[in-house]
């Protein structure tokens, strides 16, 4: 996909988002999850069929996991700690290979994806890590722009878009600050902005509210819902039942290595 056909962040993508009022989010009720449009229901961004995974010769961490993530969908992945949420996210992000079963990502069989193809596919998946994984020697702006920089893009071609995105996540005045100076919430928002900068088709977030206070957790959840409303499929891994209860959305529950889905 060339640069002309895949703009970094089209103005339309940000138009409504720029009006976000974070304070209002503190009290505003969560909107219901946007129903997946009929034409998107059959378009699967990612599909798992009888997937199993074990580390080395150990027991299976995931057993017969089957599900699909439709385009523009919103869902939670939950389950007690240690049940394999992060492992499942790593499978989704292609940093692990299943020991059995079939994974299809953007219509491609995972087992046939070559090392050379992986970076290109990864650019279509945004990931927010639990520990943020920001580079401490780069400013907030440089961290967010990193996915574009590693693609060899000229800074002048994406500067305005990255600044817009930083403003959108409420970091407009923190863009030249190094991560160690940022608060936990600001780091989380920077990590989200970095995951979104390439306008991915799906956003995977691993415990995005795990390190923040309830007020900030609420704001971050609002942010994710807004993203989904703009067309990005979202999967949030969390063990925070309270957070999930606030939004009426699809739930995928991992327990004992097996996955139950509550639509």
């Amino acid at each position, binding site marked *: 996909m060339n640069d002309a056909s895949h703009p970094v962040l089209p103005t339309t993508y940000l138009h409504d988002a720029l009006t976000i009022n974070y304070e209002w989010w503190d009290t505003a009720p969560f909107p219901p999850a946007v129903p997946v449009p009929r034409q998107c229901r059959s378009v699967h961004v990612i599909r798992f069929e009888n997937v199993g995974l074990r580390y080395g010769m150990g027991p299976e961490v995931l057993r017969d996991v089957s599900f699909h993530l439709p385009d523009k969908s919103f869902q939670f992945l939950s389950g007690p700690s240690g049940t394999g949420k992060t492992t499942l996210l790593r499978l989704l992000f292609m940093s692990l290979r299943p020991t059995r079963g079939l994974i299809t990502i953007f219509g491609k069989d995972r087992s046939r994806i070559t090392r050379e193809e992986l970076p290109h596919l990864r650019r279509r998946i945004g990931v927010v*890590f639990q520990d943020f994984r920001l580079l401490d*020697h*780069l400013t907030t702006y440089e961290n967010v722009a990193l996915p574009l920089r*590693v693609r060899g893009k*000229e*800074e002048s071609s994406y500067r305005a878009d990255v600044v817009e995105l930083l403003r959108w996540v409420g970091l407009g005045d923190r863009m030249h600050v190094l991560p160690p100076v940022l608060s936990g919430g600001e780091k989380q928002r920077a990590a989200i902005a970095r995951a979104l900068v*390439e306008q991915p088709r799906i956003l995977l977030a691993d415990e995005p509210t795990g390190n923040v206070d309830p007020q900030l957790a609420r704001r971050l959840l609002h942010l994710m819902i807004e993203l989904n409303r703009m067309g990005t499929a979202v999967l949030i891994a969390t063990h925070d039942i309270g957070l999930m209860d606030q939004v009426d959305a699809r739930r995928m529950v991992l327990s004992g290595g097996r996955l139950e889905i509550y639509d």
Partner: protein
Amino acid sequence: MTRASSGAGAIARSLAQRVSTAIGARWKRSLLRHGQTAIVPRENVAGRAMVLVIAIMTFLSCLTLGAVTLVRDTASTWQTQIAREATIQIKPAEGLDMGGALATARRIAASYHGVRDASIVSDTATARLLEPWLGPGLDINELPVPRLIIVTIDPADKPDFAAMRAELRQAVPNAILDDHRTWVDRLVAMSRTTVTIGMGVLALMLSATALTVIFATRGAMAGNGHVIEVLHFVGAEAIFIARQFRRHFLLAGARGAVAGGLVAVIVFVIVSWWSSRNIATPEGDQAAALFGTFSIGLSGYLGVALIVLLIAVLTAATSHVTVMAYLRRIEP
């Protein structure tokens, strides 16, 4: 003619403008790129230790190379100097006309192809040679002192010593021709052994340097695992990540290697300057007799440059291999 020259001028101006625009754009791009923070973080403690270790190992390797070059050149000079001369010694005997014998022996030696010069060591010079043992004011005509003829030889085209020896024996029975073969053979054997040992030491030194550089680079890289992971997860291609680290470590390695090489060159220059300053003193003469002029010459300096280059490249290659291995580990 005028129109033609004006057309050529316009083309030249247009070309110059295009080149200037291209250079300007390139320069602007370069400035923009340089305005950003480097993706690989600046050196931490391990990185600085790596640069220091590289500098020290380069210095030691260059010193070893310089020492081997010096030994090789000195042994070669000794060998050439000794092989360049032969001596005819005429022992005194009853009724021997020493002057006539010296003249005959000199004439015979000078007649051979490959002999550049044959000169009789004069009475005065012979007396001076014996002065340390027999004291000053010696009249050598009163003593049965052997006399010498120094035969200067073309080292590239040596005379037939066997024929010269036979002819001398016939014409002057008391003459003994010493072509220094014994000394030359010993020196050749000694210099070869010395240079072989030196080369062995240099090879060990370079191996130790290579291993130290590899381990120091890996140590410095260990602190950058999170950077590799983040770049990998934001969709950077392996070759991009490897290039970033290669460039960073090439520069860091070059910095250490150049510093070490430079200090080694300064040491060579200082020692060479010291030896040239003390050339007329007893200690200077002693050192010069053993090690020549203490100068490692152009080949030595080229060797130092080569070591610096090799170490910088080795550092970059190690970082490349480490990054690729790390990526293979995090990506099944």
